């Protein structure tokens, strides 16, 4: 995780809505605009039970209800979450990257609530005056798109060759002209998801190789469907399916940046999860044993070129993690129930997208639910700069790193720690328990530090002005 990456500013003015063009899709998954169970939106009337049926194309059997029963129980009042977003505000759907990021700080109730309620954290952070620092260079986007196009070019011949080599050695290699590449275009994410399910069924029944380019899959998140879009899914002749992730970081001499591979694996795990219910259904329908492989194919540029190479990545651990993090999103309604009745995160946007809600008021609303800020959030959550500011104001020791708490026991703030480290009886707080081993150790540490520094301290001298001042 690169901290500098986290500090980058988005290009454009940050709050611009992503356009679902092909270029953007590679970078972030499709964010559906009209596919959410929100009673205030007349054009959708999607309850949990009717959604699968309505999502399927006419004539096709209903899509399976995901076996992954994540989200709030049926009794949940969706109105509450709507109130939190504000009247007329559409919930923001979580993409695969956001779903994968749930594991980054599962202890944070603030994040769970905001994500679960579909609140746009980026816009919220902007309105709070602590905008997120994400952004993507257009060079990286162009390169990523060019690479993906190269990988999939020529009917996916190279992609299938790599997949066969890495995941199915010893079986007959795919003949380029026999690989099916079904057309998955359809109207809207639901239509595309249904089209994908149908294509998977047909390809599996046919018993050959098939390459699905940008299929659309649904995952149920906190009771509502989120649509995710893997780079590709390959159907093997044996009826198993492989998720393909295409990334533009290099594999040099067979190894790659482990943090980036980890992120790719967590993202791929979301796709595997989303495929599982479809596989169950296709299996039942075709009578074949359909298996979603838990080894995904990661395709990256080889060395310093943009010729593709690939590695199989075992995502079993990421699957387990993602499963339980999605299951824990059921807490959203519980958390919402603890908030004061009038709480809302509505930004009161004007028509041109400017937030008119006073930042202090928003800050107060955000304060009603606890955050579990840690520096790692800076690279994983849009609200992190706001939470860091608050955490620092409160003097929370976690602002210095998660590991800091380890030896401090019950001491949670800088003030408490310094009071404990001070000489016995001399502290203003006087609350430090002299029998607490943390207090004893801190006192010892402070005394040893002071002893070592006495007379030797070399305060840094100010040097000439540096360029960035």
């Amino acid at each position, binding site marked *: 995780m690169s901290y500098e990456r986290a500090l980058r500013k988005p290009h454009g003015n940050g709050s611009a809505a992503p356009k679902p063009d092909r270029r953007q899709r590679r970078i972030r998954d499709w964010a559906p605009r009209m596919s959410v169970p929100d009673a205030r939106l007349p054009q959708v009337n999607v309850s949990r039970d009717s959604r699968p049926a309505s999502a399927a194309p006419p004539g096709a059997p209903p899509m399976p209800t995901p076996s992954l029963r994540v989200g709030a129980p049926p009794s949940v009042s969706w109105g509450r979450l709507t109130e939190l977003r504000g009247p007329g505000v559409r919930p923001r759907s979580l993409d695969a990257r956001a779903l994968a990021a749930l*594991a980054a700080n*599962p202890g944070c109730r603030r994040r769970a609530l905001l994500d679960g309620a579909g609140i746009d954290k980026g816009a919220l952070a902007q309105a709070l005056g602590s905008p997120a620092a994400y952004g993507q260079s257009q060079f990286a986007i162009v390169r990523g798109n060019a690479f993906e196009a190269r990988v999939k070019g020529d009917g996916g011949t190279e992609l299938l060759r790599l997949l066969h080599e890495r995941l199915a050695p010893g079986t007959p290699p795919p003949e380029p002209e026999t690989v099916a590449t079904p057309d998955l275009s359809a109207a809207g994410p639901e239509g595309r998801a249904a089209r994908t399910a149908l294509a998977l069924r047909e390809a599996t029944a046919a018993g050959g190789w098939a390459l699905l380019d940008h299929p659309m899959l649904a995952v149920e998140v906190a009771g509502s469907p989120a649509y995710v879009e893997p780079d590709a899914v390959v159907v093997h002749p044996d009826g198993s399916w492989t998720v393909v992730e295409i990334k533009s970081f290099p594999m040099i001499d067979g190894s790659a940046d482990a943090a980036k591979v*980890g992120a790719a694996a967590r993202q791929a795990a979301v796709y595997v999860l989303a495929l599982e219910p479809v596989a169950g259904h296709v299996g039942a329908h075709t009578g074949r044993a359909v298996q979603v492989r838990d080894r995904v194919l*990661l395709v990256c540029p080889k060395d310093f070129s943009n010729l593709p190479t690939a590695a199989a990545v075992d995502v079993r651990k990421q699957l387990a993690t993602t499963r339980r993090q999605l299951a824990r999103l059921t807490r959203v309604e519980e958390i919402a129930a603890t908030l004061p009745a009038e709480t809302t995160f509505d930004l009161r946007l004007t028509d041109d997208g400017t937030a008119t809600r006073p930042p202090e008021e928003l800050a107060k609303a955000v304060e009603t639910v606890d955050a579990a800020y*840690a520096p790692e959030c800076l690279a994983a959550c849009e609200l992190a700069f706001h939470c860091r500011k608050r955490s620092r104001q409160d003097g929370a020791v976690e602002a210095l790193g998660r590991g800091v708490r*380890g030896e401090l026991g019950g001491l949670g703030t800088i003030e408490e720690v310094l009071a404990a480290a001070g000489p016995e009886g001399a502290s203003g707080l006087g609350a430090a328990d002299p029998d607490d*081993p943390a207090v004893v150790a801190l006192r010892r540490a402070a005394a040893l530090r002071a002893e070592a520094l006495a007379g030797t301290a070399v305060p840094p001298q100010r040097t000439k002005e540096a360029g960035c001042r």
Partner: protein
Amino acid sequence: MTATQDPRSTTNRPFDPAASAAAATDAILRDTLHGTRRGVVVDSPPGAGKSTLVVRAARELAAAGRPLMVVAQTNAQVDDLVLRLAGKDPELPVGRLHSSEPGAFDPVLAELPAVRTSAKIADLAGMDVVVSTAAKWAYTKVDEPWRHAIVDEAYQMRSDALLSVAGLFERALFVGDPGQLDPFSVVGAEQWAGLAYDPSSSAVSTLLAHNPDLPQHRLPVSWRLPASAAPLVSAAFYPYTPFRSGTGHGDRRLAFGVPGDGSGVDRVLDEAAESGWGLLELPARHTPRTDPEAVRAVAQVVRRLLDRGGAATSESPASAGGTADPVPLTSGRIAVGTAHRDQAAAVRTALAGLGVTGVAVDTANRLQGREFDVTVVLHPLSGRPDATAFHLETGRLCVLASRHRHACIVVCRAGVADLLDEHPSTEPVRLGVTIKFPDGWEANHSVLAHLNEHRVVWRP
């Protein structure tokens, strides 16, 4: 939960542990003595008779006129093996190769008639069996390699340590427990991650990566772990290589002469005597590692174990027929396990304060390979504000939960389940590295879920 499922519940024949273990041992010895491959790998779960196997294989090789070298990882392990070899066959010529430092080996060895000790390999020429640590063997030069070797605790040996001794032998039997603590390095070794010979990985991973078709065996029966513990330890830590207890429910019994006084400590003792497990749960609180309340609770549990006149009845040896007599639970049969050295030191001080002596108090690392009637464990995550990779390491919990013959009592603060749930999982993934199962997170959750069924909530 899966922990209580019998891995072989589908078969109808009654399970005969002795026969099953004997069949496994025979197959191992066949491959070792008569096989054509250069290596044989044996996975041994806790208490499955690994040392017995090593001693037997060494004696049979020697008896067949094939002298061998034995590689163990620590001096204590080497001394223990030499003692066992001499115990089985006092006539067997055994060499104990040791370092030139004073006190390098157990002085008891000097009194064994057929055992010769030396710091120089030349002095041990002609001995049937020569035993030493991997570290000492690495500095040893021989003209002709040994035809045979046994490498003990091979999963705790690092790949680079094997590299420096593998030239000393032509073929070897590798024995170890894959569920215990992995070897580690104090410096980064990421640049070799994914290479078959990654020097920081375990000797067995490297061996099998280069020789994937070597015969691999597994000892199927734990003679140490009671029927109450084997299913949990097997399911939580050995999900793909299940094992069974050699004893049935009711074969072992732990009883107290003095009835409980109703306190939390006594209630958890009764629960553990009854079920083999006990969780003494203290109120949730963030504490430093040496949580005084938890440390005191551990010490009190030990004190009461002794005060209440505990007695452990084990199954009778197969030959004897009847029931064995109860053996008093003395301090030498009890151990306390912790994650950190300072915790062990704090427990020792607390025990001394209660007048208890002779109880082994140590970290998981140092308790590896040891066995007691009852263990008292300070849970590695008790009171922690955060879980770290160290505290979640599967092997650590596995060692702590698998040292006992009768019962294991865990002292822990409430809130560990939440702590596990809130643990961020953003691990890096290195290409080509085989992932290790089970995951520490999962293993911790399954152990905790099981312990919760034997929970005594106590506010000291």
